Each structure stands twice: as C-alpha cells, then as structure tokens.
C-alpha cells in the first residue's frame, strides 16, 4: 500500500501544556485507520494539525510526498484533506444542498447545474436527497452528522477524517454511518476514524492506533489492540 500521509516527529504545545509529543504515523492510500485513546489524549489536536486548523510546534506532515505544513486549511482541503466536525457546524442559513455547493464551488471551481447533480448524487448516497431543499438548521442529530460527511465528500477528498461522527447516536444510526464510511472507502478514499464506540472502530479499521497523553502507545490490527496491555491500562485504568 503506497503511503498517502506521512507524519514525522509531530509536537504541539499550548503554553505549558504538551498536547502532542513526537508523533510518527504513516497512512496508506485507501487504508481504513482507527484512532482511539481516552479523552484528552491528543486525538483532536492531531487531526487539527493534519487539517490545518492548528500549526504544529515541531515536526512535518507530508501528503503524497509533498510537505503541507505551511498551507492554510482551505489549501489542504483543495489538496484532498477533508474532515467532519465532532460537533456539527452546518451553514445554518443555507439549505442542505447549498451546504454541499460550498465545497463543490470552492474545491471544484464552479457550481453550475452539473455540480448540483453531483451534490444530489452524494446526498442520495447519504439518504438525504429528500431533504435537499430543507433549511439545514432543521435537521435531526444523525442527519446533521450525515450532512457533515456529505459536505466532506463534496470536496472530493483523498483523505477523509471522521471525528466522532457516531458519538451519541443510537445503535441503528451507528451502523448507518459505519456503512456510509465503508462505501466511501470502497471508492478508494483513505479514512481516518476517531470514535469511542469500540465495536464500530474494531469492525471498521484495518489498523488501529492508540494515543495516550500525546504519544502513540501502540498500533496494530484490531484483534492485537484489544489484547494489548497498554490499551487496557489506558482505557481500564491501571
């Protein structure tokens, strides 16, 4: 599997507090990677550095061999790094369809009738096409999550970061989102999933990385991870 994303010696501190220290990680093209770790372990900081919301203190991030540290978030999105937000951030004054036309227009470069079709296709895939013309602040919780993923898809990503898209959803809704992520990955998109719902992460990921207090404490296949003493200590407490 050819490397899509390469992170070397990534460190990020806020004032005195070190959120990430010396993280090294490689993500293959088309891979399904799970990222787990207790609250405050640095997961969100890591993806904020990858997506460009934060600038790391040290270390480098390469996308397909090209260093992207200096680029702003919107430039990284155009290069193919897309993310959904843990707490959905819809463009509330716009309809669901218009929400998707923003990334399509600004990444694709135009938003004519062809693009509207493209957006409708993505909504169809998410099961939201019936609500395309509904004001986005009228959506339910799970629909908002789906729109976040749809909006990330509309930016034609090579790497999709799903940040706790299933937190707080009912069992059936979790499976729905899980199936969507599987389908997206099937089209060749690399997916990094951050979740606390262990069954989902273990079912979805080919490889799981466990973070704790800003460092990667272990990585491996789901079955290896479950048995790993570090993970148990991080999750169950020593």
């Amino acid at each position, binding site marked *: 599997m050819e490397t899509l994303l390469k992170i070397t010696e990534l460190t990020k501190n806020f004032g005195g507090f070190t959120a990430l220290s010396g993280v090294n990680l490689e993500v293959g093209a088309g891979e399904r990677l799970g990222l787990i770790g207790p*609250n405050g372990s640095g997961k969100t900081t890591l993806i904020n550095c990858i997506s460009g919301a934060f600038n790391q203190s040290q270390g480098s991030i390469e996308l397909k061999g090209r260093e992207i540290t200096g680029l702003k978030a919107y430039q990284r999105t155009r290069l193919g790094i897309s993310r959904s937000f843990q707490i959905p951030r819809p463009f509330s004054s716009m309809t669901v369809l218009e929400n998707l036309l923003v990334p399509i227009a600004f990444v694709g470069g135009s938003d004519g009738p062809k693009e509207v079709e493209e957006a409708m296709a993505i909504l169809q895939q998410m099961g939201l096409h019936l609500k395309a013309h509904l004001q986005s602040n009228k959506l339910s919780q799970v629909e908002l999550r789906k729109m976040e993923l749809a909006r990330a898809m509309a930016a034609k990503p090579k790497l999709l970061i799903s940040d706790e898209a299933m937190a707080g959803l009912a069992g059936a809704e979790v499976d729905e989102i899980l199936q969507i992520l599987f389908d997206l990955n099937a089209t060749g998109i690399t997916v990094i999933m951050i979740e606390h719902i262990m069954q989902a992460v273990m079912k979805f990921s080919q490889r799981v990385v466990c973070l704790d207090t800003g460092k990667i404490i272990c990585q491996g296949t789901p079955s290896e991870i479950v048995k790993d003493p570090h993970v148990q200590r991080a999750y169950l407490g020593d």
Partner: protein
Amino acid sequence: MAIKLVITDIHASYGSVRALMGVSLNLQSGQTVALLGTNGNGKSTLMKCVMGMVKPSSGSILLEIDGEHFDLTKLSTQEIVNLGVALVPEGRRLFPKLTVQENLLLGAFRPAARAEIATNLEFCYEAFPLLKERQHQLACSMSGGQQQMLAIARALMSSPKLLLIDEPSVGLSPLLVSTTITKIKELKEKYNLTVLMAEQSFHQAMRIADYGYIIVHGEIVFHSNVDELQNNQMIKSFYLGA
C-alpha cells in the same frame, strides 16, 4: 443525616451526547456508587439529569433527605444545589481568570454553606495543602491534577450531603488519577459522604466504590456489588467491545 437517591426508568437525550434508555439506579446514605463505561455512553447525561441541567423525557429522580422527599426533575439546578447536592463537573469547569481562593469561595455560594465558610475553607486547605500555597494564583495557570483537586475542594465548600463526581480521571496521567481517587476515598470516609461517581477507569473506580453500574449505549447492562464486579469476565467485553 439519612439520604437516599432513587432514579427510575430515565429516558433522556442531550444535544449530541448519548440518549439514556430507561436507566434506573439507587444510592443509600454513606454509600459510594460507581457508574462505569467508556465515554459517550450516557454517564455525563445521567449526572446532568440529576443536577437538573438536562430535563429527562420520562422517568423520575427522587431525593430523600432526613425523611423529606424531593422530585429533582421538577427543580432548577440552583434549587437542587441549595438542597446540598454538589457536582464536580466533567472537565472540571473552574473559573479560569479567578484565583484559587475566589473559586473556593464561589463554591460556598449557597446560603447554608456561607455560615460554615471558615471551617470549610480551613478544611479544604488542610486536605489539599497545595491549594493553600497557591490560593492567590489563577485557576487557569494550574496543572490538570491541581485543577482537579481545586474542583473537588470547590464542591466540598458547599458542605454537600450528596457529592456527584463526573469523570475525575479525564486528562490526568495514570499516576495523578490514583492520587485523586485516594484523596476522594480519604474525604469520603472521613466525612461519610454519599458519592455517585462516573468514571472510565474501571480499576480506579473499584478502589473506592461499594456498588457499580455498567452503562453501555445508554442502558445499564450490568450492576452488582464491587467484589462480584471485580472477577466478572464480561466486564472487559463491555469496555473493549471485543
């Protein structure tokens, strides 16, 4: 001072945080109950329901203090706090730009606690000597562990009858987690506090709990006294979803 908390068949959801589907739990005087499960499963939602910060869609939360009955779902957070229920919230929620002492004094806002402010403050400084040293320092300039101590001390300043603690170990290194839990154990026994604690760290919780409830996807999947919990193999599967 007899106190009893009876939660029956609570259904609730709170923004994007886990819905509760028929949760029942009860707590006797002087008892310490642990609410266990990885986060995002409804532990904090339940704590918020008890504190009146989230209104459950159905079910009841009855608090009995010295024979008097209160239905907490009908009361505002302020009224519940005035009854003597204190919460150490998830993420501590200190007042960052206020000093340690100002945070502590705010803890004693409720009228009943104002009378005992001197004794409570003296007790907190003795229980957490570090806080006495840094009483004029801003809360935001303290480390995670120190902030956790301050959050617990602030709750104790209201001389609570029932103490709720929501995930004290979040963001703390393993070593700090055990010292925090030891301190809670010490305070609990010394003042026979009734404690309901939500905690991810299973082993830490076992050190101080008398009884435990495992919550997964908003439902209580297992509950028993501590010894039974200790040697039950199913627990690991609930935690790690194996």
